[in-house]
């Protein structure tokens, strides 16, 4: 079976990163923003796993990092959703445009 070349994988992760970035900057809905952040994190995960596999196939450091990031992403999602719920309780909306009073 033909191996997928490294730069293809990198291409996918880069695309994923910038899609996430784009979503983070343009979307106002906090749930969507959270999803965009997850995309970014996963693009990083792909990078870690890919580099681990192609550069140091006999080591597992990259994989461990990926697992670590997934754990953190889960914790982060919990915190973020808590924030979203609180925002909804206070502003009756999860649109960040409606919560702009913390300004000069």
């Amino acid at each position: 079976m033909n191996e997928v070349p490294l730069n293809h994988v990198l291409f996918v992760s880069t695309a994923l990163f910038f899609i996430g970035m784009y979503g983070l900057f343009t979307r106002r809905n906090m749930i969507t923003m959270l999803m965009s952040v997850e995309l970014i994190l996963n693009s990083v995960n792909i990078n870690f796993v890919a580099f681990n596999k192609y550069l140091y196939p006999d080591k597992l450091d990259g994989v461990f990092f990926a697992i670590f990031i997934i754990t953190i992403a889960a914790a982060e999602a919990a915190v973020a959703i808590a924030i979203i719920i609180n925002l909804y309780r206070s502003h009756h909306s999860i649109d960040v445009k409606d919560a702009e009073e913390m300004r000069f």
Partner: protein
Amino acid sequence: MSNYAYVVLIPLLPLASFFLLGLFGRKYFKTSAGPIATAILLVSTVLSFYVAYEYYFVDGKADGIYRQIVALKHTWLEFYPGISIDMNIILDPISIMMIVVVSFISLMVHVFSLGYMKGEERFSTYYCFLSLFTFSMLGLVLSGNILQIYIFWELVGVSSYLLIGFYFEKPSAVAASKKAFIVTRLADLGFLIGILILAFHAETLDFATLIQRLTTPSPQLVSITTASFLGISFLTWGLTLVFIGGAGKSAMFPLHIWLPDAMEGPTPVSALIHAATMVVAGVYLIARLFPIFAISGHAALSVVRYVGVFSAFLAAIIACTQTDIKRVLAYSTMSQIGFMMFALGVAGFGNEEGLGYTGSMFHLFTHAFFKSLLFLCAGAVIHMVHSNEMHDMGGLRKFMPVTHISFLIACLAISGIPPLSGFFSKEEILLAAFNSHMAVYIIGLLTSGLTAFYMFRLYFSVFWNKDTMPHNGNEGTLTMKVPLIILSVATVLAGFVPFSTLVTWDGNPLQSHISILFSIAPVGLAILGILLAAVLYKSANERPAKIASALGGLYQAAYSKFYIDEIYIFVTRKIIFNLIGRPAAWIDRNIIDAFMNLLAAVTAKISERVRGLQSGKIQNYTLYFFAGIVGLAVIFIYMRK
């Protein structure tokens, strides 16, 4: 030699009563404040007399010379080895003489005030201030360190300020207290600079060491006499500046302007502070540093001499024209302090020449008694007539016999009529002047004649002249009469104290011999002055007014105190305000303030721009965050190459 450590109680007891009355007086001792303060002070006074007895008659002498005893030595602040502010207590003939005078007069004033200030709203505050003053003055005279004396010097200044402004609801009293404070502060600036000059060159602040270094050939003396500024050596500068401080406190020309106004305070206060004790602090200071003046500072000593004699004469002339009873006494005080000053000024190094020094201290001693007596009598008169003006008084001898007799005794004493105390001290001063400076002697003689004239002018106008009906018929309470009687006795007897064997500048007894012939001129002039005053003022007549109009401009000038106040106002308002004040204000507003405003405006502008960053939009923040990361990444990549 006995232990003198208990001397520390003499100043500390009034301090204790100051704290007691200051903290709890208004609440708990509203009426008992007076007796409490008086009782505490009585203990101090008894102790002072006991110390004086021990020192003068039991064990003050070593080999026939009065030595200086350090009763307490406590180093308070040490700047570096040798230069320190100590809290010392030194006992020598003049400091002991002063504590006796201060505590005794203060006690008399405390007792007198029991009647005089009765029913005052701020009775306890009054006694609290009096205690503060007594503490500071006792501390001042016992000081053994020049910066220590400066601290107490300011403390008496503050208590004087508080007491002059005691009736603070009267605008004139407020103005007077402010004037006294500012004028004396200005003089104290000179004092401070003088202290710094002396201390810098002599490398010590301790009186004994200072005097020892600046009177014997030492490297310090060479350094201070060779260094000069504007052609005058630093020794002369230092001593003259110290004298300016003394002149401010002692109301010497031209810094005397605060003293007549200070009469706005309660009269017993004038008796204590502005007649007997605080105003002689300047004389005391010069006496304390006298060896330096006499041995190495001749130039500064001549400043003391001429300022003293000029002030004595000027004040005597002004006193002849004033109509406010307390102002006459104030100018008379100034004149008598002038006597003490020029007595120091004519004194010199050596046993025989030291007569001026002894005379000055002797006059300080006797003057304290008869001048405070005069002021207390004036207080009794004012208490009865409710006016300070001599026009409102007259014929009072019938209503207040005790006051009348006391006043007469004090007037005779100040005029120098034998055998009252003023005679002896004035005679010593005049003899000292006669022996060394003829011109000073002649002016002094004239001044003593004038003294007799204006004092009896006052006496006859108040107690004889026309008949007036006083407001209330009684002469005042017993507590007002007793001090008058005690002080009268003191005035009569003080002259017989063998002063010249007790107080001399080097501790050696001085043989004073006043020949009868020498006394003829001053006593004759005094009697002439009294007779003249009797002719003019004994009964109401037109003669004084005629003489006044005949003298015309001169009388007017003297009545207006030679326009010295106006000159001060002119100099401050017109010259200093216009030439210094206004440009300084302009610079302050247009340059210093403008610079600050510019800084503020620039900051405001920048923050106006910057605050846009705090938009509240989460996505903006994210953008900054990523921009920052990208920026950092670029920098790190660039740096790795």
